């Protein structure tokens, strides 16, 4: 239980008060569980040994640390028998209870102690741990508020109170707590905590005016006071001052601070003063200083790209301003200034001359030259010839760096300097200088060493980037594929001694060949090409088992073919973790559920959710640490980071899908639907998705590609994909909320004949349902409009959502009409025959639609035609939607049943009273009975079909075996069985 230890270690060994007597530049007393990073993974064992135990803590929760909660409870009970009022023992017992799942007992016990407003260290710290584990950090603030009232001069408790506020982001109270601390013990850090809290108030203020006119000026005055009294001690304090001035847009003042006496304290970060000055020069448009400073920094390090950019920016600004240097004084605060193209050209040429003397080859000067050409061209300047022909310069660059793997990435930035007519010539020019030798076996000349291979590979990548392969016909493409694969296999000989964790030098050949085959598949409809892709990638992976690109592309292709079985394993071998759950989790979650792999879908959602949930708590801890160590500039960054994860699109998606999945998998009869919804604390009214702030954290370029710009993933694709994902998420979230509203309705039926209930809020439930239904319809409309654009994302880019299938197979219509049915049934006894007629028609059309949907699930998953195989993954997707729709149908039917039953018995009672046999029963009962009968027939047909499907698939699998897995497609069938069971079970429960 590393997490438990972490929090314990954080609290017990040192008090927070002792921490703050020094800023982060001195030795720290703090012991964290992973005190040594390399051992982070086995933190638990290590931290036991490293925890320093202050003698004051007698009652350490040893058992709790070891995860032995039962023993801890027993020990605490024993102690409590002897000392009835030992608060600390009570809290330790509460922790034990909390960790054994007895949250309510734990809470009651804890509040017993908290009510006494304890002031002993042990109880306070143990309660803090407990509250944090309960995710109730706000209770910690109450605890210490009471403690400081009783012990007003305790530096320690005040400091705990400050940190408790920091955890929950109570900035104003932090400000006060910081000042209170400073009054007790006049240490600078406390004072500046208070100042920082003002900045946080300004950041979180809705009203920007308030932040600029109140919080920040106040913070500024507080720091100025310290400056005047000559009390500034630490670098962190100067950093904070700079931060305030920057936020106030007082750039001149900020510059004075950095360049002045106070600025001398800015020593930790490399070039801290220079970087800050540069930032201010830019804000102030002081181009002479920008220029002079970047020039100076480039003289020191001619490989620092950011300063080339500033240097060029400033030179051209100065030219545009017709700037001339002052006659007598220095050019600028930072020294000599370049203000003409001639100077810039010479400066870059000089950097190149210097580079040739350097022991380490530097790319910067050469790339800077190309950048300068680009800028001159952009300005329509005819001075570019002074620098030479870009084609020639790129050729020279290739000669110098072509054997480095980064050569392609570097040149990619500048290929737009080449005229399209020169592409082929350029490529052959490069090819000519690569030392390749012809072999006896092959017409193709091959590299003799890794360097030559690397150079050749660079040219192949460039050829793809320049669109040379795209322009080829089918036959030519296939020839290139063959050549690339030959080169790939030949290149393996250079990597014979590579470790499993290393990539083969020639891997990209294989990947590029596959990209060509993908073009053939998707653009020319060549079905065999995709099967070849799979075999080549599997071949590549067998030689280079750590190559993530092979795995990613295999995952993408298998998913597109509808074969999820191999995907889970491939994905898990990527070892994606932590932040990657957010950035690349979509690769898995998009397909797992839609291809019927419910267990894998659940699991991948769970992994992601665990990550997102821990983010909140983890980040708070490090915000506090940043206060302690005076890393103030990090605090807003940490908070922005936390917010970015909290408003992640993927987070909202896995949250929603996970709940839908749970309902589908667990709630097989109506009563357990109600239970499930209750246990998830779902309510139709609640919407916890931050729609306006949704952040797309997906890494959409995780799959490499070498495509030309016009085929590559564009900003537009990203924007559209986010829009599509958001629409789909809205549909799913509304569906979930509608389903969660069903049980809330069923209880309102009995007393419904009395008019009163309609007023006292019961009817609002159906209003909620109706309003959600309206929203769903509106979103569906927007979704349809969106799809009319017929957007095609690049195959390696964002996958399309399931929305198109949902609309086209008819499940959308089925699901909405089901919710309309709910709305109609609700009115059964208040509206006469008209609504009965409508309900009858709904039943009928619903069955027709379900039957239609079912028919769309039928067909061959793998079709063999003219010797080629083609998969139909849409059948699987339809089936999954069908199962989902049937589940909703059964929940809704069960609701209908719960309305009709009492309605019927009421009528029968009336009938008996009146003894009139002539009183006919309303038609709705017959409609419903017919409907249930037909539904049963349909579902048993479905079950039969699925059973049949399984036999076919088993046969197919056997066939595969005999074909010795040239066919890598496997389709899992057990899930259908399972679902057959589910459907059956639900019908029986009706």
């Amino acid at each position, binding site marked *: 239980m590393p997490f438990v230890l972490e929090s314990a270690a954080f609290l017990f060994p040192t008090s927070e008060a002792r921490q703050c007597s020094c800023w982060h*530049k001195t*030795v*720290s007393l703090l012991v*964290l569980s*992973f005190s*040594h*990073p*390399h*051992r*982070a*993974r*086995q933190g638990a064992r*290590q931290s036991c040994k490293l925890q320093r135990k202050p003698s004051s803590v007698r009652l350490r929760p040893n058992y709790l640390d070891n995860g032995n909660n039962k023993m801890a409870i027993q020990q605490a009970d024993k102690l409590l028998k002897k000392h009835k009022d030992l608060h600390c023992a009570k809290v330790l017992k509460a922790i034990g209870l909390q960790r054994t799942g007895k949250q309510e007992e734990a809470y009651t016990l804890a509040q017993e102690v908290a009510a006494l407003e304890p002031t002993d260290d042990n109880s306070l710290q143990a309660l803090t741990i407990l509250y944090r584990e309960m995710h109730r950090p706000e209770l910690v603030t109450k605890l210490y508020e009471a403690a400081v009232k009783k012990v007003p001069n305790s530096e320690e408790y005040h400091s705990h109170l400050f940190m408790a506020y920091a955890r929950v982001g109570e900035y104003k109270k932090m400000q006060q707590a910081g000042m209170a601390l400073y009054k007790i013990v006049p240490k600078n850090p406390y004072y500046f905590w208070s100042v920082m809290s003002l900045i946080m108030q300004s950041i979180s203020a809705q009203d920007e005016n308030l932040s600029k006119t109140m919080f920040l000026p106040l913070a500024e005055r507080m720091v100025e006071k310290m400056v005047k009294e000559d009390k500034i001690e630490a670098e962190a304090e100067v950093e904070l001052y700079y931060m305030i001035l920057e936020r106030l847009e007082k750039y001149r003042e900020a510059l004075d601070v950095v360049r002045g006496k106070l600025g001398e304290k800015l*020593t*930790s*970060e*490399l070039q801290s003063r220079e970087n800050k000055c540069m930032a201010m020069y830019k804000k102030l448009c002081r181009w002479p200083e920008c220029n002079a400073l970047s020039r100076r920094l480039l003289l020191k390090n001619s490989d620092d*790209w950011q300063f080339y950019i500033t240097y060029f920016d400033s030179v051209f600004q100065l030219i545009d301003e017709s700037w001339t240097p002052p006659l007598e004084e220095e050019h600028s605060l930072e020294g000599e200034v370049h203000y003409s193209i001639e100077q810039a050209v010479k400066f870059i040429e000089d950097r190149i001359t210097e580079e040739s003397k350097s022991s*380490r*080859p530097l790319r910067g000067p050469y*790339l800077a030259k190309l*950048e300068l050409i680009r800028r001159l061209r952009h300005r329509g300047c005819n001075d570019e010839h002074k620098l030479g022909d870009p084609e020639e310069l790129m050729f020279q660059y290739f000669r110098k760096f072509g054997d*480095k*793997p*980064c050569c392609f*990435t*570097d040149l*990619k*930035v500048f290929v737009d300097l080449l005229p399209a007519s020169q592409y082929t010539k350029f490529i052959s020019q490069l090819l000519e200088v690569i030392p390749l030798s012809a072999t006896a076996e092959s017409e193709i000349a091959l590299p003799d060493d890794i360097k030559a291979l690397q150079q050749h590979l660079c040219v192949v990548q460039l050829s793809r980037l320049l669109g040379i392969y795209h322009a080829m016909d089918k036959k030519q493409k296939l020839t290139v594929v063959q050549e690339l694969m030959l080169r790939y296999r030949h290149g393996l000989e250079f990597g014979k001694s590579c470790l499993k*964790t*290393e*990539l083969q030098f020639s891997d990209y050949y294989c990947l590029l060949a596959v990209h060509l085959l993908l073009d053939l598949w998707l653009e020319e409809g060549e079905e065999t090409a995709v099967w070849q892709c799979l075999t080549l990638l599997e071949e590549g992976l067998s030689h280079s088992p*750590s190559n*993530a690109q092979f795995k990613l592309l295999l995952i993408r292709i298998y998913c597109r073919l509808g074969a999820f079985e191999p995907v889970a394993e491939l994905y898990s071998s990527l*070892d*994606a*973790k*932590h*932040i*990657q759950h957010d*950035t690349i989790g979509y690769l898995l979650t998009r397909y797992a559920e839609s291809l019927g792999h419910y267990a894998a879908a659940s699991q991948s959602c769970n992994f992601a959710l665990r990550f997102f949930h821990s*983010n909140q708590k*983890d*980040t708070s*801890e*490090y915000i506090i*640490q*940043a206060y*302690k*160590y005076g*890393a103030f*500039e*990090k605090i807003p*960054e*940490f908070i922005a980071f936390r917010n970015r994860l909290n408003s992640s699109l993927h987070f909202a998606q896995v949250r929603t899908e996970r709940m839908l999945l749970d309902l589908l998998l667990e709630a097989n009869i109506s009563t357990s639907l109600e239970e499930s919804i209750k246990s998830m604390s779902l309510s139709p009214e609640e919407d916890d998705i931050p729609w306006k702030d949704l952040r797309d*954290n*997906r*890494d*959409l370029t*995780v799959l490499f590609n070498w495509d030309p710009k016009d085929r590559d993933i564009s900003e537009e694709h990203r924007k559209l994909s986010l829009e599509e994902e958001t629409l789909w998420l809205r549909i799913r979230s509304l569906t979930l909320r509608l389903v969660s509203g069903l049980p809330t309705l069923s209880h309102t039926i009995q007393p419904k004949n009395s008019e009163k209930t309609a007023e006292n809020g019961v009817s609002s439930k159906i209003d909620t349902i109706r309003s959600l239904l309206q929203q769903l319809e509106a979103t569906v409309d927007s979704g349809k409009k969106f799809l009319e654009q017929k957007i095609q994302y690049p195959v390696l880019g964002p996958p399309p959502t399931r929305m198109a299938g949902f609309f086209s197979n008819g499940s959308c219509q089925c699901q909405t009409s089901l919710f309309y049915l709910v709305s109609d049934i609700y009115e059964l006894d208040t509206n006469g025959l008209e609504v009965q007629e409508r309900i009858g028609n709904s039943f009928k059309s619903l069955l027709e639609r379900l039957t239609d949907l079912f028919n769309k699930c039928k067909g061959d998953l793998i079709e063999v035609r003219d010797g080629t195989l083609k998969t139909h993954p849409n059948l699987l997707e339809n089936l999954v939607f069908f199962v989902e729709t049937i589940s909703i149908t059964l929940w809704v039917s069960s609701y209908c049943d719960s309305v009709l039953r009492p309605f019927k018995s009421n009528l029968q009672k009336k009938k008996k009273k009146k003894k009139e046999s002539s009183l006919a029963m309303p038609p709705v009962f017959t409609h419903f009975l017919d409907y249930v009968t037909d539904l049963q027939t349909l579902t048993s047909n479905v079950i039969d079909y699925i059973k049949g499907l399984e036999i076919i698939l088993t046969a197919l699998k056997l066939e595969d075996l005999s074909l010795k897995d040239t066919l890598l497609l496997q389709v899992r069938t057990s899930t259908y069985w399972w679902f057959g069971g589910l459907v059956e079970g639900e019908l029986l429960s009706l």
Partner: protein
Amino acid sequence: GFSPRSNLDPLTETYGIPFYLQYLAHWPEYFIVAEAPGGELMGYIMGKAEGSVAREEWHGHVTALSVAPEFRRLGLAAKLMELLEEISEKKGGFFVDLFVRVSNQVAVNMYKQLGYSVYRTVLEYYSASNGEPDEDAYDMRKALSRDSEKKSIIPLPHPVRPEDIE
């Protein structure tokens, strides 16, 4: 800023968020990232300063150093190490140290070239998963100018246990 560029390099560990935040909160200056002109992440180094000044053990420590496969063989790791040493010099450290798997000969040789030498062996420092034995680490050091006599790097005669290191 955080831009989604996924590290899928098998030799580069993706740590949990707390790990990075801890370093950013405590030693922000020791976190250096190198970017290519196209915006690609070329590599990063992460470290910290620790140890007692009185005992002349105050030093810079390299926690993680990684260069993307695409940008290897450019001397980037050396450059990043140089920067970390410069920061440690400015802080008045006596030396810079790092831990490396005994089996990672490529890295050991690289560090030797950069002026590091093996100070001691730490037994079973790296815990292995899936039943393999734990692996030893070399604690490698390079003296900074404050340790003019290079006392801090005199190799220890015997290996030590992980729990014995500070």
